[in-house]
Protein backbone atom coordinates (compact mmCIF):
# COMPACT_ATOMS: atom_id res chain seq x y z
CA UNK A 1 0.00 0.00 0.00
CA UNK A 2 1.36 3.34 -1.05
CA UNK A 3 1.08 5.94 1.70
CA UNK A 4 1.66 9.58 0.75
CA UNK A 5 1.55 12.59 3.02
CA UNK A 6 -0.41 15.43 1.47
CA UNK A 7 1.67 18.62 1.92
CA UNK A 8 -1.50 20.72 1.95
CA UNK A 9 -3.44 19.09 4.78
CA UNK A 10 -0.48 17.26 6.33
CA UNK A 11 -2.31 13.94 6.54
CA UNK A 12 -0.77 10.58 5.67
CA UNK A 13 -3.12 9.07 3.14
CA UNK A 14 -3.12 5.64 1.61
CA UNK A 15 -3.69 5.37 -2.10
CA UNK A 16 -7.38 4.53 -1.72
CA UNK A 17 -7.87 8.03 -0.34
CA UNK A 18 -6.05 9.62 -3.25
CA UNK A 19 -6.55 9.96 -6.95
CA UNK A 20 -3.59 9.46 -9.27
CA UNK A 21 -3.09 12.34 -11.67
CA UNK A 22 -0.39 11.00 -13.96
CA UNK A 23 3.05 12.34 -14.66
CA UNK A 24 4.24 15.54 -13.00
CA UNK A 25 5.97 18.59 -14.46
CA UNK A 26 4.48 18.43 -17.94
CA UNK A 27 4.76 21.62 -19.91
CA UNK A 28 1.65 22.40 -21.86
CA UNK A 29 1.88 23.03 -25.58
CA UNK A 30 -1.39 24.46 -26.82
CA UNK A 31 -2.66 26.38 -29.84
CA UNK A 32 0.15 27.75 -32.00
CA UNK A 33 2.68 25.14 -30.97
CA UNK A 34 4.32 22.78 -33.41
CA UNK A 35 2.73 19.40 -34.12
CA UNK A 36 5.73 17.62 -32.63
CA UNK A 37 5.54 19.58 -29.38
CA UNK A 38 1.80 19.09 -29.13
CA UNK A 39 2.10 15.37 -29.76
CA UNK A 40 4.82 15.04 -27.13
CA UNK A 41 2.73 16.98 -24.63
CA UNK A 42 -0.29 14.78 -25.26
CA UNK A 43 1.21 11.35 -25.57
CA UNK A 44 4.85 11.05 -24.61
CA UNK A 45 5.20 9.87 -21.06
CA UNK A 46 7.99 8.49 -18.96
CA UNK A 47 7.61 4.88 -17.89
CA UNK A 48 10.62 4.42 -15.65
CA UNK A 49 11.67 1.52 -13.52
CA UNK A 50 12.84 3.55 -10.57
CA UNK A 51 12.53 7.23 -9.70
CA UNK A 52 9.30 8.79 -10.90
CA UNK A 53 7.42 12.05 -10.33
CA UNK A 54 3.66 12.05 -10.19
CA UNK A 55 0.68 14.24 -9.49
CA UNK A 56 -1.82 13.14 -6.87
CA UNK A 57 -5.16 14.53 -5.81
CA UNK A 58 -6.19 14.48 -2.17
CA UNK A 59 -9.65 13.52 -3.39
CA UNK A 60 -12.01 12.91 -0.45
CA UNK A 61 -9.64 14.95 1.70
CA UNK A 62 -8.59 18.56 1.35
CA UNK A 63 -9.27 18.52 -2.40
CA UNK A 64 -5.85 19.86 -3.38
CA UNK A 65 -3.29 18.53 -5.82
CA UNK A 66 0.29 17.77 -4.85
CA UNK A 67 3.39 16.17 -6.29
CA UNK A 68 5.08 12.99 -5.13
CA UNK A 69 8.46 11.45 -5.91
CA UNK A 70 8.61 7.69 -5.57
CA UNK A 71 10.34 4.61 -6.88
CA UNK A 72 8.12 2.60 -9.21
CA UNK A 73 10.05 -0.57 -8.46
CA UNK A 74 9.97 -0.56 -4.65
CA UNK A 75 7.20 1.98 -4.02
CA UNK A 76 9.62 3.83 -1.76
CA UNK A 77 8.41 7.39 -1.34
CA UNK A 78 11.14 10.04 -1.47
CA UNK A 79 8.84 12.88 -0.59
CA UNK A 80 5.79 14.93 -1.47
CA UNK A 81 5.75 18.60 -2.33
CA UNK A 82 3.59 21.45 -3.51
CA UNK A 83 1.97 21.34 -6.92
CA UNK A 84 2.79 25.05 -7.37
CA UNK A 85 6.17 24.37 -8.91
CA UNK A 86 7.57 23.46 -12.30
CA UNK A 87 10.41 21.32 -11.00
CA UNK A 88 11.17 19.16 -7.97
CA UNK A 89 12.53 21.21 -5.03
CA UNK A 90 16.13 20.72 -3.91
CA UNK A 91 15.26 18.83 -0.72
CA UNK A 92 13.37 16.23 -2.74
CA UNK A 93 16.23 15.92 -5.24
CA UNK A 94 18.67 15.51 -2.34
CA UNK A 95 16.49 12.84 -0.74
CA UNK A 96 16.46 10.90 -4.00
CA UNK A 97 20.20 11.30 -4.53
CA UNK A 98 20.82 9.90 -1.04
CA UNK A 99 18.90 6.75 -1.92
CA UNK A 100 19.47 6.46 -5.68
CA UNK A 101 22.84 8.06 -6.55
CA UNK A 102 23.08 8.99 -10.21
CA UNK A 103 19.33 9.05 -10.82
CA UNK A 104 17.86 11.02 -13.66
CA UNK A 105 14.34 11.65 -14.89
CA UNK A 106 13.65 13.71 -18.00
CA UNK A 107 15.80 16.84 -17.61
CA UNK A 108 16.18 16.44 -13.85
CA UNK A 109 18.92 14.63 -12.00
Amino acid at each position, binding site marked *: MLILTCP*NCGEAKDETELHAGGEAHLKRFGPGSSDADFEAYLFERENPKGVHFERWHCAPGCGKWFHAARCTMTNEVFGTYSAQTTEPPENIKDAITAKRPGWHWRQFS
Partner: protein
Amino acid sequence: MSNLRSFEGLVTVREMPLRGMITLRGDTEVMTAALKSVGFELPERGMCNGAVVWMSPDEVLVQCPHESVGQTLAALQSATQSMHALALDVSDTRTVFEITGAATREVLAKLAPIDLRSAQFPVGKVRRTRLAQIPCAVWLREESAAEAIIFRSVAEYALGVLQSAAHPQAAVGYFASNKM
Protein backbone atom coordinates in the same frame (compact mmCIF):
# COMPACT_ATOMS: atom_id res chain seq x y z
CA MET B 1 -38.11 15.36 13.49
CA SER B 2 -39.31 11.82 13.96
CA ASN B 3 -37.69 10.28 10.90
CA LEU B 4 -34.12 10.50 12.15
CA ARG B 5 -32.35 7.23 11.52
CA SER B 6 -30.56 5.40 14.28
CA PHE B 7 -29.03 2.04 15.13
CA GLU B 8 -27.70 0.33 18.21
CA GLY B 9 -24.95 -2.25 18.13
CA LEU B 10 -21.34 -2.09 19.27
CA VAL B 11 -21.94 1.64 19.16
CA THR B 12 -25.01 3.80 18.94
CA VAL B 13 -25.38 5.50 15.59
CA ARG B 14 -27.78 8.38 15.51
CA GLU B 15 -28.62 10.85 12.79
CA MET B 16 -28.48 14.31 14.31
CA PRO B 17 -31.33 16.80 13.94
CA LEU B 18 -30.89 19.52 11.30
CA ARG B 19 -27.77 21.54 11.89
CA GLY B 20 -26.78 24.80 10.31
CA MET B 21 -23.62 24.31 8.23
CA ILE B 22 -21.88 27.03 6.27
CA THR B 23 -18.90 26.49 4.02
CA LEU B 24 -16.48 29.38 4.28
CA ARG B 25 -13.61 29.60 1.82
CA GLY B 26 -10.83 32.13 1.54
CA ASP B 27 -7.30 32.87 2.66
CA THR B 28 -6.37 32.39 6.30
CA GLU B 29 -6.60 36.13 7.02
CA VAL B 30 -9.97 36.43 5.30
CA MET B 31 -11.38 33.42 7.16
CA THR B 32 -9.97 34.62 10.49
CA ALA B 33 -11.56 38.04 10.07
CA ALA B 34 -14.89 36.67 8.87
CA LEU B 35 -15.12 34.15 11.69
CA LYS B 36 -14.24 36.81 14.21
CA SER B 37 -17.19 38.88 13.02
CA VAL B 38 -19.57 36.12 14.06
CA GLY B 39 -17.73 35.33 17.29
CA PHE B 40 -15.82 32.27 16.16
CA GLU B 41 -12.15 31.45 15.90
CA LEU B 42 -10.25 29.78 13.11
CA PRO B 43 -9.24 26.31 14.27
CA GLU B 44 -5.69 25.05 13.89
CA ARG B 45 -4.86 22.98 10.84
CA GLY B 46 -6.74 19.69 10.95
CA MET B 47 -8.73 20.51 14.07
CA CYS B 48 -12.30 21.22 15.12
CA ASN B 49 -12.84 23.83 17.82
CA GLY B 50 -16.45 22.95 18.47
CA ALA B 51 -18.30 25.22 16.11
CA VAL B 52 -15.75 25.50 13.32
CA VAL B 53 -14.39 22.47 11.48
CA TRP B 54 -11.14 22.77 9.52
CA MET B 55 -11.63 21.37 6.03
CA SER B 56 -8.60 22.38 3.95
CA PRO B 57 -6.03 25.20 3.93
CA ASP B 58 -8.66 27.52 2.46
CA GLU B 59 -11.91 26.08 3.74
CA VAL B 60 -13.73 25.71 7.04
CA LEU B 61 -17.20 24.52 7.93
CA VAL B 62 -19.07 26.75 10.35
CA GLN B 63 -21.70 24.98 12.41
CA CYS B 64 -24.56 26.85 14.04
CA PRO B 65 -28.14 26.20 15.08
CA HIS B 66 -30.30 25.54 12.03
CA GLU B 67 -32.64 28.41 12.93
CA SER B 68 -29.87 31.00 12.86
CA VAL B 69 -28.09 29.85 9.70
CA GLY B 70 -29.54 32.70 7.62
CA GLN B 71 -28.36 35.28 10.11
CA THR B 72 -24.86 33.78 10.43
CA LEU B 73 -24.56 33.45 6.67
CA ALA B 74 -25.56 37.08 6.14
CA ALA B 75 -22.99 38.17 8.72
CA LEU B 76 -20.24 36.12 7.07
CA GLN B 77 -21.17 37.39 3.62
CA SER B 78 -21.14 41.01 4.69
CA ALA B 79 -17.81 40.49 6.46
CA THR B 80 -16.28 39.10 3.27
CA GLN B 81 -18.07 41.40 0.85
CA SER B 82 -15.01 43.14 -0.53
CA MET B 83 -12.76 40.09 -0.35
CA HIS B 84 -12.11 37.05 -2.47
CA ALA B 85 -14.13 34.60 -0.40
CA LEU B 86 -17.16 32.35 -0.41
CA ALA B 87 -19.78 31.73 2.26
CA LEU B 88 -22.45 29.21 1.36
CA ASP B 89 -25.24 27.50 3.27
CA VAL B 90 -24.77 23.74 2.88
CA SER B 91 -27.02 22.64 5.76
CA ASP B 92 -29.45 20.74 3.58
CA THR B 93 -26.75 19.08 1.47
CA ARG B 94 -25.17 17.29 4.38
CA THR B 95 -26.25 15.31 7.36
CA VAL B 96 -24.46 14.46 10.59
CA PHE B 97 -24.25 11.07 12.23
CA GLU B 98 -23.26 10.74 15.83
CA ILE B 99 -21.41 7.59 16.82
CA THR B 100 -21.21 6.94 20.55
CA GLY B 101 -19.90 4.09 22.62
CA ALA B 102 -16.67 2.52 23.78
CA ALA B 103 -16.10 0.91 20.36
CA THR B 104 -16.28 4.21 18.45
CA ARG B 105 -12.66 4.11 17.29
CA GLU B 106 -12.99 0.48 16.35
CA VAL B 107 -16.12 0.94 14.25
CA LEU B 108 -14.59 3.90 12.43
CA ALA B 109 -11.37 1.96 11.86
CA LYS B 110 -13.32 -0.69 9.97
CA LEU B 111 -14.66 1.84 7.49
CA ALA B 112 -12.05 4.56 7.07
CA PRO B 113 -8.41 4.00 6.02
CA ILE B 114 -7.08 6.30 8.72
CA ASP B 115 -4.90 5.86 11.78
CA LEU B 116 -7.34 5.93 14.68
CA ARG B 117 -4.85 5.45 17.51
CA SER B 118 -5.33 8.24 20.01
CA ALA B 119 -1.83 9.62 19.42
CA GLN B 120 -2.67 10.14 15.74
CA PHE B 121 -6.36 10.89 16.10
CA PRO B 122 -6.91 12.75 19.37
CA VAL B 123 -10.20 14.28 20.42
CA GLY B 124 -10.88 17.34 18.26
CA LYS B 125 -8.83 16.20 15.28
CA VAL B 126 -10.74 16.34 12.01
CA ARG B 127 -10.08 13.91 9.22
CA ARG B 128 -11.67 14.16 5.81
CA THR B 129 -11.63 10.68 4.48
CA ARG B 130 -13.93 8.04 3.13
CA LEU B 131 -16.43 5.87 4.98
CA ALA B 132 -16.28 2.69 2.91
CA GLN B 133 -16.97 4.29 -0.49
CA ILE B 134 -18.35 7.72 0.38
CA PRO B 135 -16.57 10.92 1.40
CA CYS B 136 -16.96 11.99 4.98
CA ALA B 137 -15.49 14.37 7.54
CA VAL B 138 -15.11 12.82 10.96
CA TRP B 139 -13.85 13.93 14.34
CA LEU B 140 -14.06 12.78 17.94
CA ARG B 141 -16.16 15.10 20.04
CA GLU B 142 -14.97 13.22 23.10
CA GLU B 143 -13.11 9.98 23.62
CA SER B 144 -16.12 7.76 22.94
CA ALA B 145 -18.24 10.00 20.74
CA ALA B 146 -17.60 10.87 17.10
CA GLU B 147 -19.45 13.02 14.62
CA ALA B 148 -19.37 12.29 10.93
CA ILE B 149 -20.59 14.69 8.27
CA ILE B 150 -21.66 13.04 5.05
CA PHE B 151 -23.70 13.97 2.00
CA ARG B 152 -27.39 13.61 2.73
CA SER B 153 -27.98 11.77 -0.55
CA VAL B 154 -25.84 8.85 0.68
CA ALA B 155 -27.03 8.86 4.30
CA GLU B 156 -28.77 5.51 3.83
CA TYR B 157 -25.52 3.97 2.59
CA ALA B 158 -23.61 5.46 5.52
CA LEU B 159 -26.07 4.04 8.01
CA GLY B 160 -25.85 0.67 6.26
CA VAL B 161 -22.07 0.41 6.46
CA LEU B 162 -22.05 1.71 10.02
CA GLN B 163 -24.60 -0.95 10.91
CA SER B 164 -22.47 -3.75 9.51
CA ALA B 165 -19.35 -2.39 11.17
CA ALA B 166 -21.18 -2.06 14.48
CA HIS B 167 -22.94 -5.43 14.32
CA PRO B 168 -23.10 -6.76 17.91
CA GLN B 169 -21.21 -9.90 16.90
CA ALA B 170 -18.55 -8.11 14.89
CA ALA B 171 -16.34 -6.88 17.73
CA VAL B 172 -12.59 -6.98 17.08
CA GLY B 173 -11.34 -5.53 20.34
CA TYR B 174 -8.19 -4.01 18.85
CA PHE B 175 -8.42 -0.68 20.62
CA ALA B 176 -9.63 -2.29 23.83
CA SER B 177 -6.61 -4.58 24.05
CA ASN B 178 -4.06 -2.08 22.73
CA LYS B 179 -3.96 1.02 24.86
CA MET B 180 -2.34 3.44 22.48
